[in-house]
């Protein structure tokens, strides 16, 4: 039977009389945990920001019609050559449109799926921007502005004007910031759009958008779905792309496979599209944990030292306790609880300091062209990190305290009592 009140009281007295040494040991833990929290909040904040940058505007599944040679050539269908070796020269793709056949029913079908947060159409077209004598090649994409804002945070990339401005204006266009700069245009100005066939349409600039990726901003513009369809002279079932956002991103791959099979379309899931991006994230996480664990191991050695010293100094106390009826286990618990108290106090202080530092980092200004919506350094204050942090502290102090306390358990009181 262990009498915790007595044991903790003794542990407390020991710690308080050796306040300097124990607080040094606790500070070691504080550093380790504080650094962990600061690092992990900052690193994952960065990760999340890049995540948002790339993944939030990228659809989880992108469905389109790829122009590629038929997988089955006509000769394959010919019954008589079934078992023979066939050679076909100069395969060319069949002449087909980039339009998705039956796009509207497919969108309706996708939107009925429980895991789909939304599936929205786009029309991509190649055009020229004309302002005065300048003619510039580019892409004009027709979108449903409000839906794009809802599902893909489209508004984050609009630096002037808004999605509603575009929604309200049938002849409006959101011009890429790079395009606008090249042609010295601004909101309120007019820009002429020329299709490949040479037809010219004037559009009013209702806003500017900047994705942060220069290659896109220099060519891309957006307008309403209907506007593009009108410019291209197509009906309202002319749709080239379907972007799908899911509730659970992890099922994206499976679902893209299903869509490909079911509709004979090309469907790319987000992970396949951004594989290298994940690698960077993993490496940042590895660095965070490597640094934190190193600091904690150093702190652990500090605790180990202090406890060893304390036990050496407290030989007499240990002998008396044992002589008056405290068992070896009780004595071990006394020193174990000292280690854990150091761990808890140091750890909690570390959490507080880490929280403070992370919040401070969050106020540091960080402005860059590439990230128009970010004004300060990002941090991610996930409660999980704090739980991991304190568990870290407890586990490392537990191991640091275990060996010394085991030694205290084994001390033979007779030897000590004789020794004096």
């Amino acid at each position, binding site marked *: 039977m262990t009498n915790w009140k*007595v044991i903790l009281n003794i542990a407390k007295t*020991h710690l308080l009389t050796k306040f300097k040494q124990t607080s040094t040991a606790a500070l070691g833990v504080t550093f380790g945990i504080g650094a962990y929290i600061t690092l992990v909040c900052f690193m994952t904040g960065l990760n999340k920001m890049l995540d948002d940058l790339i993944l939030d505007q990228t659809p989880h599944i992108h469905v389109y019609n790829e122009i590629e040679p038929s997988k089955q050539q006509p000769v394959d269908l010919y019954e008589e050559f079934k078992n023979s070796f066939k050679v076909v020269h100069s395969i060319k793709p069949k002449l087909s449109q980039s339009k998705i056949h039956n796009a509207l029913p497919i969108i309706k079908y996708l939107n009925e799926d429980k895991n789909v947060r939304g599936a929205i159409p786009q029309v991509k077209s190649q055009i020229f921007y004309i302002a005065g004598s300048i003619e510039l090649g580019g892409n004009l994409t027709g979108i449903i502005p409000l839906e794009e804002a809802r599902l893909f945070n489209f508004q984050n990339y609009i630096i002037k004007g808004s999605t509603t401005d575009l929604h309200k204006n049938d002849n409006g266009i959101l011009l890429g910031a790079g395009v606008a700069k090249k042609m010295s245009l601004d909101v309120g100005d007019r820009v002429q759009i020329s299709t490949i066939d040479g037809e010219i349409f004037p559009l009013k600039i209702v806003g500017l958008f900047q994705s942060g990726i220069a290659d896109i901003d220099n060519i891309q513009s957006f307008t309403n779905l209907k506007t593009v369809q009108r410019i291209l002279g197509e009906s309202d079932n002319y749709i080239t792309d379907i972007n799908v956002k899911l509730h659970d991103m992890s099922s994206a791959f499976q679902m893209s496979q299903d869509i490909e099979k079911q509709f004979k379309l090309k469907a790319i899931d987000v992970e396949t599209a951004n594989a290298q991006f994940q690698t960077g994230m993993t490496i940042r996480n590895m660095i965070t944990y490597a640094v934190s664990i190193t600091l904690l191991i150093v702190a652990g050695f500090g605790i180990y030292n202090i406890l060893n010293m304390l036990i050496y100094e407290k030989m007499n106390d240990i002998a008396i306790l*044992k*002589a*008056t009826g405290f068992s*070896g286990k009780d004595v071990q618990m006394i020193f174990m609880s000292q280690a854990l108290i150091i761990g808890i106090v140091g750890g909690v202080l570390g959490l507080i300091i880490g929280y403070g530092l992370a919040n401070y980092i969050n106020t540091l200004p960080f402005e860059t062209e590439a990230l128009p919506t970010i004004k300060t350094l990002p941090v991610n204050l996930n409660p999980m990190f704090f739980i991991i942090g304190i568990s870290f502290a407890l586990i490392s102090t537990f191991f640091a305290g275990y060996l010394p306390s085991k030694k205290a358990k084994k001390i033979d009181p007779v030897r000590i009592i004789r020794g*004096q």
Partner: protein
Amino acid sequence: MKKVLETKHVHKYFRKPVLFHVLKDINIDVKKGEFVSIMGKSGCGKSTLLYILSTMDTDYEGELFLNEELITGQNNDVLSYIRNKHIGFVFQFHYLLSEFSVLENVMLPAKKLAEKSLEEIEYDAMQKLKILEIDKLAQKRASRISGGEKQRVAIARALINNPAIILGDEPTGNLDSYNSDNVFEIFKQLSIDQGLSLLVVTHDIDFADRTDRIIEMSDGEILY
């Protein structure tokens, strides 16, 4: 009369630095309420015997009985409990937890036993301190009192759980004759009033003469 403590053919050897037969066939007993003293030349093995009787030293041959139950071979947790509840030990040199107050030192074994409430324990501890005339020191740190005072605190601590037997290794060694007499009277009183048994090593022939019985030791053997 019931035997509180008894040894049967106890032998003890020290193996280092050379094999040394310290205790040779020790057969003694202490009956309930009996006040026994052990005398013998320095180095004859009195402390060694006492450590075995206190259950702290388990490296011996033979059998040890407490309240007519065999103790030899019990595991350490049981032995700790026995020490806590049934045996009060006063060391040859005063041994206190120096960072705790006098009162806390006395209370500690009772807190460990946890049979009484904290208030009762504190009351008992103050009673014991009063008997030993050191109740004024209750709140002082144990490291800040004199040698004789420390010895009396150690006696108060040995008494706190009302043990079956008190083992003393020269418990009055550091006391002047007034306090030595006082401690003797307290021991005597406890053995008569409460049936407390005592086994006390002493070099003080006057002290020994006034006890119920003297065990004489020489070179690890009991003479009578």
